[in-house]
């Protein structure tokens, strides 16, 4: 079980008894209030009908789950690949490694592109975070974190800072400076604090806010400048391994995936879970929104990638083959959403036709697990990072 003793560290006056206490969010008729723990417990048992025992609530939950499945099944009139039959098949793809970035001393765990479509930040098990120029393969910056297993890293939208974290349970922001005399580590700012490892982080539309996911089972939104917790997202029953923000046109939501096999879509403002999907058979390692924002893909240890449509509220495609038995660690879409690139633990990268459900290409090159994969912001290339200590840029 995950460590769910992480409560919102907000102190203030309780909305019910007005005493100055540690507050937690409660929902009353889908409105969010802040109650102290005493009032929250009272509210939980308030208005309890005579027969409303734990058992009756559990059975109501089960019947609601069944009803949810029924509602979803009613709209399942056709499969995506059937609708996609009228679309032209894709031609042959020639994708090769165009650049190999060498320099990490141990497994590469995470990477992210800068919006300038050129720079890449990557983090590794040995605690090093490196910023590369992918055109020249030169290293521009390097930071040594105080912890090993830096599992998450992200580039700020402005290109002026990077965020990273891992076993230190924190997310730290480093402003990037080209001044040779300045020590990057000196300007480090600790932004997020979790009670377990940091598994993923991402800046929102600006350099001012960061969204984090953690092994403590929660996601959280932080203000970078003050380090204040703005919103926390509780609902996963185990470690959260990945998250992705919706493309900006579609509003304030994000999707997260975890060891509880669930992918959950959250409203960033209210902290509520809007939709949840539980069809994977093992940990979800990676989630990525479809470019239109109406769907998202997930990669899991059950060796499949799946596409979930948010408006149909169900899984609409599975990308799998009997010959693929190793988990998918990382997924990303091409610019149009027609191709899904997925990195696997069997050292390969499979390219899937999203609409038809078939595999288009298989890429070899890495000498160990592919742990991270991202398409560049202009879609001209994608970069993969691996446990073989290298990153490769493919085009």
């Amino acid at each position, binding site marked *: 079980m995950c460590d769910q003793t992480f409560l919102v560290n907000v102190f203030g006056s309780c909305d019910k008894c007005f005493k100055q206490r540690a507050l937690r969010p409660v929902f009353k008729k889908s409105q969010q209030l802040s109650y102290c723990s005493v009032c929250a417990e009272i509210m939980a048992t308030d208005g309890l009908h005579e027969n409303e025992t734990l058992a009756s609530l559990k059975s109501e939950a089960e019947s609601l789950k069944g009803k949810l499945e029924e509602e979803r099944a009613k709209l399942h009139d056709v499969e995506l690949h059937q609708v996609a039959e009228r679309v032209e098949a894709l031609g042959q793809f020639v994708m090769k490694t165009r650049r190999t970035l060498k320099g990490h001393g141990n497994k590469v765990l995470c990477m992210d592109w800068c919006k300038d479509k050129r720079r890449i930040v990557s983090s590794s098990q040995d605690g090093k975070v490196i910023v590369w120029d992918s055109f020249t393969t030169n290293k521009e910056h390097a930071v040594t974190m105080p912890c090993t297993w830096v599992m998450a890293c992200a580039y700020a939208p402005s290109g002026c800072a990077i965020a990273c974290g891992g076993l230190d349970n924190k997310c730290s922001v480093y402003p990037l400076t080209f001044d040779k005399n300045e020590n990057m580590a000196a300007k480090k700012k600790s932004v997020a604090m979790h009670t377990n490892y940091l598994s993923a982080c991402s800046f929102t539309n600006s350099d001012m806010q960061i969204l984090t996911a953690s092994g403590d089972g929660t996601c959280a939104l932080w203000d970078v400048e003050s380090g204040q917790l703005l919103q926390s997202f509780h609902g996963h029953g185990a470690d959260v391994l990945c998250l992705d923000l919706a493309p900006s046109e579609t509003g304030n939501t994000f999707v997260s995936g975890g060891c509880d096999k669930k992918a959950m879509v959250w409203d960033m403002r209210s902290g509520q879970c809007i939709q949840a999907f539980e069809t994977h058979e093992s940990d979800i390692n990676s989630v990525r929104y479809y470019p*239109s924002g109406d769907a998202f893909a997930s990669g899991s240890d059950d060796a499949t990638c799946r596409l979930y449509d948010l408006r149909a509220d169900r899984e609409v495609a599975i990308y799998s083959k009997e010959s693929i038995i190793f988990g998918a660690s990382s997924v990303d879409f091409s*610019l149009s959403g027609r*191709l899904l690139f997925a990195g696997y633990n069997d050292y390969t990268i499979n390219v899937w036709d999203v609409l038809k459900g078939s595999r288009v290409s298989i890429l070899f090159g890495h000498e160990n697990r592919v742990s991270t994969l991202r398409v560049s912001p202009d879609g001209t290339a994608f970069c993969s990072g691996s446990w073989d200590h290298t990153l490769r840029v493919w085009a």
Partner: protein
Amino acid sequence: MSGKVTTGSDIGQARRAVEQLRMEAGIDRVKVSKAAADLLQFCTEQAKSDPFLVGIPAATNPFKEKKPCAIL
């Protein structure tokens, strides 16, 4: 894990789960045929600007090798 006594927090958790499920069951859904058609439409519209599908010439792709140039 659950003892004979049901604590307030167990019931609280169960109630939250039931409320969450009620909310999820009540959202508006679209038929898969419509949702799939929209995904298709987005794909075909964006396909022209997808470098992996259209293939941009080696000269403009910063990662691909340019043709060797002669030194005059």
